[in-house]
């Protein structure tokens, strides 16, 4: 079975967010980039399923410029077999989805996995767009994924509960915990990752449909009002009379 795992290159989760002086772009200076944490679930689960099936391939796909390659190599070190980088800045979700759909179609992949959303843009859009572009089902967000032959059983999170869904390959799923315990690379993986194939292709498709005009930081809080612990009940009065939230 052929798995395609889409990964996004995002600022580390502890990053303090800052923008370029014109507020049009994220300021990358001094920032550590990581594989999007949600995508790690997709990657590890694809590797686990491949191992359980005793065959098949896991291809990792990233839409990004050359500076994303260290994290693509990391995905190869975790256990993907080969990688494709679409050589373009990921302008918006629709632009990225078109790249994924084009590669998925040409490569005849059975299962297309990605994280629920990226932690930088938080679009939560690409999965559905890819499914629609390819005319195949999407299950999002998926908390569990098991395969039996060409049929997948997934748990889809809905507000307040979950649905058990069965779909046949090919399909798209966006992944989140508790799907699996994301793996970290071991020394052998890191060594073999250096020689695994990483193909670079140029982007295709139509122009993006959205554009960020400006970024801004959220308004700052005024500061905390402390209430002495021995007088804790006072807090409830403030919440009713001052903050008016209860």
């Amino acid at each position, binding site marked *: 079975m052929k798995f395609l795992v889409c990964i996004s290159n995002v*600022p580390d*989760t502890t990053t303090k*967010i800052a923008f370029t002086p014109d507020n049009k772009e*994220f300021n990358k200076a001094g920032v550590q980039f990581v594989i999007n*944490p*949600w995508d790690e679930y997709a990657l590890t689960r694809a590797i686990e399923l491949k191992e359980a099936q005793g065959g098949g391939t896991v291809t990792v796909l990233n839409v990004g410029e050359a500076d994303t390659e260290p994290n693509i190599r990391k995905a190869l070190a975790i256990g993907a077999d080969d990688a494709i980088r679409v050589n373009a800045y990921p302008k918006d979700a*629709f632009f990225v*989805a078109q790249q994924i759909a084009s590669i998925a179609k040409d490569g005849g992949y059975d299962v297309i996995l990605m994280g629920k959303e990226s*932690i*930088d843009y*938080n679009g*939560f*859009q*690409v*999965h*559905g*767009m890819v*499914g*629609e572009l390819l005319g195949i089902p*999407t*299950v*999002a*967000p998926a*908390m569990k994924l098991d395969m039996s032959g060409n049929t997948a059983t997934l748990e*889809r*999170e*809905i*507000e*307040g*509960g979950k*649905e*058990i*869904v069965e*779909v046949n390959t090919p399909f798209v799923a966006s992944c989140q*915990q*508790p799907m699996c315990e994301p793996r970290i690379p071991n020394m052998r993986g890191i060594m073999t990752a250096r020689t695994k194939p990483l193909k670079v292709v140029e982007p295709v498709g139509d122009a993006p*449909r*959205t554009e*960020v*005009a*400006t*970024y*801004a*930081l*959220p308004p700052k*809080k*005024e500061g*905390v*009002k*402390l*209430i002495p*612990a021995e007088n*804790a*009940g006072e*807090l*409830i009065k403030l*919440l009713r009379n001052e*903050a008016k*939230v*209860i």
Partner: protein
Amino acid sequence: MSVLVVVECDGGEVKKSSLEVASYGSQVAQLLGTTATAVAVGEATEANLAQLGEQGITKVLYDAEPRLKDFVNGAYTKLIAAAAQQEDSKVIVLANSNIGAAVGSRLSVRLQASLATNVVELPKNDGGQFTVKRGAFSGKALADVVLSGERKILAVKKNSIEALHEAGKTAQVESFSAQLTDADFADAPKQVIMQEQTGGVLLPEADKVVSGGRGMKGPENWNLIEDLAKALGAATACSKPVSDVDWRPHHEHVGQTGITVSPNLYIACGISGAIQHLAGVNSSKVIVVINKDPEAPFFKAADYGIVGDVFDVLPKLTQAVKELG
């Protein structure tokens, strides 16, 4: 050319987030000089749908097909696309929920529309440029996004828009059929499992949340969190370390890789306030932090704080809420 609003219903009732979406949609309609039509999904009653008039909706389309009671991505997408075609809608508004995002992303391709999710304010339509504000970087930033093309889809973040209530106004409910076939139900759920919610309050929909961290010392102490939540009519939540060690179920985990909540009131008990946790809660209107460590970083993000032992403070708060009556 009306604005189309997707309204999610559950057990006959319109979800709270959908009342906000309906209010958002009717205000967009006003901005564009047109009316707002809703298309309802899930289990609804005609009386509850007619009440959407209070949120400024003129007409509600409803397909009573029983298989639409549960979320089916294929069928919902087709139904909403058909409604958008019939109404010739240039703007479609839905909730930034799991359902809204799953359907909205497919619709955007099918209808060749531009899509913005996580929208937190009404759009601006100046000189032919359609701009919305959305949350980005897990709540650590806001972005003004320009949407191009003739059609736009907006997924509105919960609790970012005040629901309108114009008493007495009713919407006209019309039956609607998208001619759905079995193929549209290919991803229909085999089974739906709902979790038990503390006091029946659903965390993603809650406007008050009481949340516990490692400072609660163990799952056996959660009655303190639950008691306060029940007294307030709040949902319960937890930090990532707590769900990682299975003190609480995963669906209660709020934070960067868990649920993002934006309630009116978030009370954090024994949570230090790691940046990843703040990312999931920092768009809450009022944040209260209770922690015995005065250096806990969460105090910097809080509106009110109590430096003290949660085991001493929580029962006092529950008592004070009960005394309010």
